[in-house]
């Protein structure tokens, strides 16, 4: 493991610990505002346990206790985030124009972005998927498929 990778690994664990400290602190700050005393007990236990565990992780990372962790590999995260954005836009679009209109658009764009270049295949899958969903889930299972606020 080279020094740069080791440095990346340590930085990542420190960030995780800081996040956990912040999150537990928020919970500890809010807990006293819970009116019922008994309702505060379990949140207190877990928040304190989280802080203790995070501190142990901090010490483990700083002093290199135990087995050395492999460096965290965040390669491919940009592509994953692009997919996450596509899914987010898809979600918002479903709310607006409904599943049956949003899905072909989403599938077309996603497959294209992910590198599928066969246009016929893209069109086939984009049109077939909502059809299968309609037959299976709407017609057979009677599930309410979202129609969007423009059409409801």
């Amino acid at each position, binding site marked *: 493991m080279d020094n740069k990778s080791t440095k990346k690994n340590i930085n990542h664990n420190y960030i995780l610990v800081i996040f956990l400290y912040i999150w537990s602190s928020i919970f500890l700050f*809010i807990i006293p505002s819970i009116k019922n005393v008994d309702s505060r007990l*379990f949140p207190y236990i877990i928040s304190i346990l989280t802080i203790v565990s995070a501190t142990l992780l901090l010490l483990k990372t700083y002093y290199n206790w135990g087995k050395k962790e492999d460096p965290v590999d965040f390669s491919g995260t940009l592509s994953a985030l692009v997919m996450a954005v596509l899914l987010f836009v898809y979600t918002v679009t479903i*709310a607006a124009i409904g599943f049956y209109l949003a899905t072909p658009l989403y599938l077309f764009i996603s497959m294209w972005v992910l590198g599928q270049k066969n246009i016929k295949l893209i069109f086939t899958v984009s049109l077939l998927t909502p059809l299968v969903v309609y037959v299976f889930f709407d017609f057979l299972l009677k599930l309410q498929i979202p129609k969007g606020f423009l059409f409801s």
Partner: protein
Amino acid sequence: MDFLNYGLEVLNFTNILWLVIGAFVGAVLGALPGQCATTGIAMFIPLTFNLEPVTALITLGAIYVMGSYGGNITAILINTPGTSDSFFMTFDGYPMTRRGEGLRAIGISTISAFIGGMIGIFALLTIAPPLAQVAYKFGPLEKFLTMTMGLVIIISLSKDKMLKGLLSACIGFLCSMIGIDIISGITRFTFGINQIYDGLPLIPVILGMFAVSQVLALVGEKSETIVVDRSAIQGSVFLSFKDIMSMNVNNIRASIIGTIVGIIPGAGTTVAAGISYDLAKKSDPHPESFGKGNEQGLASVSAANNAVVGGSLIPLLTLGIPGNGTAAVFLGGLYIHGLAPGTKLFTTDAKQIYGLFWGLILAQFFILIIGFYGAPIYEKVTRVPTNILIPIVGCVCILGAYVFRYQSFDALLILFFGIVGYYFRKADIPMIPFILAYILGQGTEMQLRRTLFLMEGRIGSVLLQPLPLALLTIDLLFLISPFWGSIKKHFTKK
């Protein structure tokens, strides 16, 4: 007798149709790299809402069984296990394929998986009902200790990642406390968001953590389509009676190991397969042939893998402790359909649970069908490019979130947990403790508070009762077990 009576009731056209659908979905997902039974169950839970509980359980059970088997064929034919369950299959399965015996290897795997699955379900049928009666005697303290035992075991089995496992569980517990406190009725940690007034909804959390995070991970990996070499699909998949009998000893031993390992929370198929493979190798007159296409090795792994399914459902259905990650998600499916582990499941809800048992038995026969006739179809399935598969899985996940409560907020929540799950994967933080803590969190808190209320300061006398003491001892033993080697070394040095 109940089991037979309910069989006549539940084996109708609708249930069998859904069994077939679940079996097909499980087989396909198990074969596709990056997908697994856990993803399949998570995706199908919301889609089974409008089904009768027994039909839903049969479907999810079929996905579980076939998902565990599904990866075998691709592991044997193309050295690429569809799931981690099938990893050991590549040791002897693929070498058999390379010497032109691919179909024979599939035949061995199929028969062994069938035997393993049936033995696992037989154990489930015989152990679960009486164990549920024992669970009936559990008070709040025993229930609390049982729930924490499942978590402690899973965290302790993370070994080098124990701290991260513990943190994962803490995050899961914190998520479970969002919403209404079921004892006092007070809302906690909602931050003014109305949509989580009654808690973080189960489906978006599970779908996000497992399925959406997997979608994001696959995109990041930029995996290529895997192609099966047609020359591997030659010969005959059917074995002679003599061949089947020659593997009986390994099959039965591996099935028993798989069932027992399945009962232990967190152990999983990899442990079962590893132990069975090792024992088969040690007892074989030619151990040097293992890893080079030994049929006994292949048989033992296959039998152990499928036996785990039945074993993992024993603690799940009786005590509410999932045997592995897939069973943890299955538990979510039970709750969604208004069922809860314990005695009531085998009395008031007996129709549902015995329906599940029948579904699991029939799904084993689907293993035979898929195994004996499915290899050419699998060859086509694995050709589906990931850049088509990923968007479709994403679409099904978002749809699943929408049909749960018909709220856009749930779809956004699924994305949020998808990103959290993606981070967990990248940072090597175990996900199962999170899911288990999230699902069991409210129940654990409730039992703890009931215990404290009933104890009224008499902690010592209550804890020293036989059952609580035994459960507490098991908890502590599992907590110490990862450090046992170091402690022993320390004292030996002195």
